[in-house]
């Protein structure tokens, strides 16, 4: 039986920004259900990589395949199966958390004939601990609460692949623990996340990628990488 296709596969992927290369010659494969952690200083290309996998940016060079579809041409096919959590929460500040989620649910076709879309919204809100404040405008919520809502938005449509850019930013330890089942290893989903915490990041991952200046400085199974090697990236 042939090997199943990896959930994420890059070969020589690159992305320019003007004349500068934001990402250059990145190649890796990530199997389904596994976690890739991406380290690197600011400007190294971590966010670019995540946005490229999320179909928000077209690759300028190389091949990128996500969940069996080649980007950018077949991006349409995978969008509904990817959950993206970036630096912005992507929530409208004047609407409430529930209204935001309902909007996204409609976009993802979740509220169509079945009513279990509404139930799903309620379930997700409860899972991130925002059930009580779900009807307050986002502008009135603290940053931690907004981040929780952002997590809710990212997992609302039960994606197979999670792309998380510093997902635990602004979350206190209790909140961080609360969202673990949704976006952590325990969720069982394929995950690509960025991290500035060498020890913690490596512990929760199967594969580690180190970026420096847009280039692949390090790629190895996470178990074999030491925090010192990661620290070198920041040197």
């Amino acid at each position, binding site marked *: 039986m042939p090997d199943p296709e990896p959930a994420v596969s890059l070969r020589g992927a690159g992305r320019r920004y003007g004349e500068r290369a934001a990402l250059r010659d990145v190649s890796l494969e990530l199997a389904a259900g596994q976690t890739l952690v991406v380290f690197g200083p600011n400007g190294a290309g971590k966010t670019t990589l995540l946005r490229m996998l999320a179909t928000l940016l*077209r690759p300028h060079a190389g091949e990128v395949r996500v969940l069996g579809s080649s980007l*950018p041409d077949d991006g*349409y096919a995978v969008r509904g199966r990817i959950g993206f959590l970036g630096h912005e929460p992507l929530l409208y500040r*004047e609407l409430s958390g529930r209204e935001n989620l309902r*909007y996204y649910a*409609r*976009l993802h076709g979740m509220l169509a004939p079945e009513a279990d879309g509404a139930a799903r919204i309620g379930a997700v809100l409860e899972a991130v601990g925002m059930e009580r404040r779900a009807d307050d405008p986002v502008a009135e919520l603290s940053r931690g609460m907004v981040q929780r809502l952002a997590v809710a938005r990212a997992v609302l449509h039960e994606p197979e692949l999670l792309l998380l850019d510093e997902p635990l930013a602004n979350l206190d330890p209790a909140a961080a623990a609360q969202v673990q089942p949704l976006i952590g290893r325990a969720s069982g989903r394929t995950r690509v996340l960025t991290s500035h915490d060498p020890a913690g990041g490596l512990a929760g991952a199967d594969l580690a990628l180190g970026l420096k200046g847009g280039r692949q400085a390090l790629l190895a199974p996470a178990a074999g990488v030491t925090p010192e090697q990661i620290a070198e990236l920041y040197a």
Partner: protein
Amino acid sequence: MRGTIGALLAKDLALELRTRESVPAMVLFSVTTYVIFHFGLDRNTVSGDLAAGVLWVTILFASILGINRLFVAEHEQGGFDGFLLAPVDRTALFVAKALALFAFLCIVEVVAVPAFAVLLLGPSPAQALPGLLLVLALANAGVAATGTLVAALAIQTRARDLIGPLLALPLLVPVVLASARATTPLLQQGGAQPLPGDWLAVLALYDLVFALIAYAVFDFLLED
């Protein structure tokens, strides 16, 4: 597609109701412009082609306000990303935003046109009303199509409040031209004359051409 448009439109209308950013500003702007016209032209009443001109220039400039604000929420609150991540036809954003702009224009005109009739218009508009509504509908469609496209172009630039009007005003000249010529006989001092059909045809042609072009190129503005 229809579901997506519905979702987007509902969200935009909810936001506008909540923030009341665009529509009240456009209404106030229109009424203030009438006052300025009164002083600028030194006339108590206008009729015929002067009336048509005042009305349409005012509507044009009020539209610019709406166009400038159209994509601001998306741009500032990361809404573009949220939409781009969804498995939907991206042209739905164009249709939804154009419909929203059309709706805003209609609401503004519900106040601005009677205000015009009260403040500046000499002859009574009662006879002219059906014809006027038709012209308004066609003109609003043209402004909505072109305006949404221009708004989407301008929102990604650094000087978006400047680029928007600079692009929109020349592009909307045919709309103003045709609408004013069509409205002139309706607002004549001696009573409303029949509506000139050929200017309506020009408006309809403009609407069709720009709606089609905007529909075709919009995707390219969203992708990266």
